[in-house]
């Protein structure tokens, strides 16, 4: 078992479109991208966000820029203009995702 911290493997940027938040995860190296492709699933991401994301999380692979794009539905408390949260635009979904730790089996 190996414990890998996402913040060591990737950068991230998140943004809003109504009640959908997308998180682009940018691997720091081609090797890191392969690890992320294998282990950073939509399910892992959804679980990490707990009640912050109420809908489905869809993952898109973006090989040419070594990125994964997570499209999180029902993520912004109804959308920025309705949200009662501090971070109405979901700019820190990126930050919270970077806190994630991946457990990699040997």
């Amino acid at each position: 078992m190996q414990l890998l911290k996402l913040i060591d493997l990737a950068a991230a940027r998140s943004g809003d479109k109504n009640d959908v938040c997308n998180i682009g995860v940018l691997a720091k190296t081609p090797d890191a991208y392969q690890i992320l492709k294998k282990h950073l699933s939509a399910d892992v991401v959804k679980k990490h966000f707990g009640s912050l994301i109420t809908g489905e999380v869809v993952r898109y692979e973006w090989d040419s820029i070594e990125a994964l794009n997570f499209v999180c539905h029902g993520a912004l408390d109804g959308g920025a203009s309705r949200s009662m949260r501090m971070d109405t635009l979901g700019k820190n979904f990126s930050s919270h995702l970077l806190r994630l730790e991946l457990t990699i089996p040997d």
Partner: protein
Amino acid sequence: MSVVRIAGAQGFYGDSPMAAIAIAAQQGADFLVHDALAELTLSILQKDRLADPNMGYARDLETLAKFLIPIAHQNGIRIVTNSGGLNPESAAQKVAAILKQQGITNFKIATITGDDLLSQLPQLQQNGHQLSHLDTGKPFAENKYPPTHANVYIGAQSVADALNQGANLILAGRVADPCLTLGILVHKFGWKLTGNLSQPDLDRLASGIAIGHLLECGGQASGGNSYAEWPMDYPVSNLGYPIAHVSEDGSAVFTKLDSEGGKVSRNTLREQLVYEIHNPAHYITPDVTVDLTQIQLTELAPNHVQVSGAKGKPRPNELKLAIGLHEGFITEQFFFFSWPYAYDKCTRFIEAVNEIWARLPIRIERKEFTIVGVNGIHPGAAPTPPPDVLNQLNELGVRLAIKHSDANTGKIAMQAITCLGLNGPPGIVSMPTWGKVNRVILSLWPTLIPRSAVQETVQIWEV
């Protein structure tokens, strides 16, 4: 091969004009693109227009007219923006007046209108358009809130037309962000935008959209808001905004002014590429649907990155119409407590607030309490340390937020808890100017509408 230089000169309504002024003064671009319309901006502009029928455009246009446009015009640089918002005509008159005061002549302003369908909503429904919600499928007739704005995302054609007519400044309404840039490229290179398009035609349009997408958030493509370049080892107080040197084939080299801060790297561009994108193989715009998955970002030299490889698919048959709805109000406030017992004092304070509000004859539809320093930004997801650890912190804050439909409720609720300053847990620090009373809650009703229901108009205003 001919090249046109386009700068992403503004990323949002309220952005600093300094980067654009530097680019104009150093003749670093041929065109400046100013994007002013985020999803919510039109609702803000509608409030302005209700208060004064001559308003409804992005007010920072007045600053640009005083300090940027004269320099840009002197250097032969043209400006394309959607800052016209809900009232491009009034914006044109205001800008024209400011330019005249400065002795500027031989200047053409073009307005682009036709995206604002608010007044036509009843007629559209009578004509059989259900305006069904894009996600839920519900017809608009079932909506129970008053609409605040209704704007359709329009494409690049009118931008190209206005530039073909010699416009020095384009003041558009809801032209989709990347289409501002595409319009410049269609004008400059004569790219085919409509009709029977070949795959190379579509790929060129897709490249234009990709370039426009990379430019539309200004400094976010040149090292701002960056985890990819963290710890951001370059100046950010004078961040240079991105400039795309675009060739006729649709490839581009992104750079910035040497004199300014920031950075243009493969990292800063891929970080912007993913921003607000859903399916990267199917990025829908009014003019072309774009596959961004084969895009290549190549660093040629420091601060010089080549972008190529976007692929195009035919544009959608319908256009997206976003209707804003007034759903009520949010009122929020912040309070802080220090060591000792900072966490326990926060929870005790929240308990007292709940008890006071329960006794008031007001209707609070929803309330949220978070503790700043613990779960203010990520409620429900942030890991929470145990209370004995939290009680050792020097300070923690409480954020209260309530949703209400009556405009007085927020004031009454916040007034009722001020007594806790003397009656509540010891040592409260209040931050009254941090909170907001009656922030309007808007929900967006996205729908699709046939292109035939939208009539765009380009009008030229001579200064």
